[in-house]
C-alpha cells in the first residue's frame, strides 16, 4: 500500500501560498432565534498551512463543529472571513475544494460503495475537478478493495465511515474537513481508525481540519492542536505536536505524548 498519488507532487506544494493555505480571520457566529440569540463563537483566527493536520478540540458545545461548517461554507459567519487558497468558502464549494466527512457516514443507501465514492465526481461537473485516483485505488487505500459492489447496509459503521472518507478524497479537494468522524464508533474500532486515517493521510497528504473531543485522537493525528474554550468559543491555546511521523501506537506512552496530554487535560479543565 506504499503508493503515493501523483496529484500532489512536492514541487507543486512548495510553491503555493506561504501565508496560509486556509485562513480563518476573526470569525464570530451568533445564532439568532425569534426571542434569543446564542453566541456560539466569539472570535477565532487561525492559519493552516498546506498539508498540515490541525485538530480543533474543546468541550461539547464550544462551537467547534460550527467553526468547521463556517470554514466549509455550510454556515455563514456573522462577522469575519474565511479564505481557502485565497478564495471564499462559497467559491471553494463551487470549485469542489472542500471534502467533508461528518460524524455519521451519511452515505446514499441505494448506491453501491463505489457509486457512493463517485458521488462527488458526478455532482457539480462544471467545477472541472479531477479525480485523485481511480475508484478501485481509493477503495484499496481505505481498505475496502473487496467491497466495491456492496451496499452501505452490508457494511459495519467503521467501514461505512471509510467509504465516507474515500468519497471526500476522490475529487481531490484542497481541504479535508472532518467533524468527529469517529465519534459514532466504538472505542476499539475508533482507536484503529486513527492509525488508518494517518496511513491514508500519509498517502494523500491533504490539508486537514479535524474536530474531536478525544485527547489521544488529537495528539496522534495532529501537527497542531487548537484548544477551544467553552461557549462562546475562542482559541485558548495552540499546541504543536512534535512527535515524529509516521506515528504508531507505541508513541502513546512516550514522554512527549504524556506531556501534551497532561497539558491538554489542564487546558480543557480550566
Amino acid at each position, binding site marked *: 500500500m506504499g503508493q503515493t498519488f501523483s496529484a500532489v507532487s512536492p514541487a507543486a506544494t512548495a510553491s503555493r501560498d506561504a501565508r496560509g493555505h486556509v485562513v480563518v480571520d476573526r470569525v464570530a457566529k451568533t445564532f439568532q432565534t425569534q426571542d434569543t440569540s446564542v453566541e456560539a463563537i466569539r472570535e477565532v483566527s487561525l492559519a493552516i498551512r498546506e498539508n498540515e493536520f490541525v485538530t480543533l478540540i474543546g468541550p461539547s458545545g464550544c462551537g467547534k463543529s460550527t467553526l468547521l461548517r463556517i470554514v466549509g461554507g455550510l454556515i455563514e459567519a456573522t462577522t469575519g472571513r474565511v479564505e481557502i487558497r485565497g478564495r471564499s468558502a462559497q467559491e471553494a*464549494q463551487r470549485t469542489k475544494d472542500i471534502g467533508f466527512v461528518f460524524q455519521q457516514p*451519511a*452515505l446514499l443507501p*441505494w448506491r453501491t460503495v463505489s457509486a457512493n465514492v463517485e458521488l462527488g465526481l458526478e*455532482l457539480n461537473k462544471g*467545477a472541472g475537478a479531477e479525480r485523485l485516483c481511480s475508484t478501485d485505488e481509493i477503495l484499496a487505500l481505505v481498505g475496502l478493495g*473487496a467491497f466495491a459492489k*456492496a451496499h452501505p447496509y452490508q457494511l459495519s459503521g467503521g467501514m461505512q465511515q471509510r467509504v465516507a472518507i474515500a468519497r471526500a478524497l476522490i475529487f481531490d479537494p484542497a481541504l479535508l474537513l472532518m467533524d468527529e468522524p469517529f465519534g459514532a464508533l466504538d472505542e476499539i474500532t475508533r482507536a484503529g481508525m486513527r492509525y488508518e486515517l494517518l496511513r491514508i493521510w500519509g498517502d494523500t497528504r491533504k490539508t486537514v481540519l479535524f474536530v474531536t473531543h478525544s485527547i489521544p485522537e488529537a495528539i496522534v493525528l495532529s501537527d497542531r492542536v487548537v484548544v477551544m474554550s467553552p461557549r462562546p468559543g475562542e482559541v485558548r491555546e495552540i499546541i504543536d505536536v512534535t512527535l515524529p511521523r509516521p506515528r504508531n501506537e507505541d508513541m502513546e506512552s512516550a514522554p512527549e505524548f504524556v506531556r501534551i496530554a497532561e497539558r491538554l487535560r489542564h487546558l480543557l479543565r480550566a
Partner: protein
Amino acid sequence: MTATAATRAFQPNTGASALARLRRTWPAVFGLIAFFVGWEILIRLTNTPVFVVPAPSAIAPRLWEELPNYAYEFSYTLAAAAIGLVIGTSVGIVGAVLMANWRILEKSFFPLAVMLKLVPFVAIAPLLRIWLGYELQPKIVLASLITFFPVLVNCIAGLRSADPLALEFFRSVGASRWEILTRLRWMATLPYLYAAFKVNVNLALAGAIVGELFSSKNGIGKVINETALTLDIRAMFAAIMFLAVTGVALTLFMNWSERRVLFWHESVRTSGGRG
C-alpha cells in the same frame, strides 16, 4: 486478505429456500381452506337457499364458466384504474415537488387538496356520469381523484426526509438544486411513494369499479350490477371472488416489486417486505 469471506458477506439476499417459504406461508393457506370448508359446511347444515348465500361448491363452477367473460370485462376496469393511477400519481408528484419547494404553494393549495380528499368519492360518481358519460373517462377521473392525495402527502414527506448530513455533503461540493432534487431527495422519496402506490393500486380499482356501478357499458362493476338486477347471486359471488383473487395477486406483485426496487431500505430489510 479474507477476500472470500468478504465477497460472501455482501451477496444479495436471494430470499429463503423454498422449504422456508412454505413454512412461512402454510398457516395462511390453511386459514383460507378452513374458511371455505367452514362456509360450505354451514350452508349445507342450515340448508341456506342458493339465491341467498351460495356454497363455494356452487360458486366455483360458475366462476370457471364465466372466467373468460370476467377477464375480458376486468380488462376495462384495470385499464381505467391503471390510467387513473398514472394520472393521480403524476399530478401528486408534481404537486409535491412544487409544494415542498415553495411553502407558499403548500399553504395555499394543501388545504384545498385535503378538502378534495374529504369528499367521499362515491358521492361524485353520479355527477361524473352526467359530465362524462358511460365510457372509460368517468372511471379514470374517479381513480385519479382517489389516488392523487396519498401520493401528494407521502411525496411531500419523502422529499423532506433526505438525510441532513447527506444534504450537507451535496451542498459542500456545490451541487445544484436540481442535482439535490434528482439524486438525493427523489431517491429518499421512493420508499414513501411505494407506500402510497401499495394503497393506491387497490383504491384505483375500487374507484374504477364504483364508476362502473354507476355508469358503464363494460367492466367488472357492470357485471356485478347486472347480476344484482337479475338476482343471479351465484354469478355475483363469482365476480366478487374474481376481484378478491386479482386483488391478492396485485398486492403480492406490489410486495415483490417493492423488495426489488427498495432492497436498500430498512422497511424491506427488516420486515421481509410484508404489509
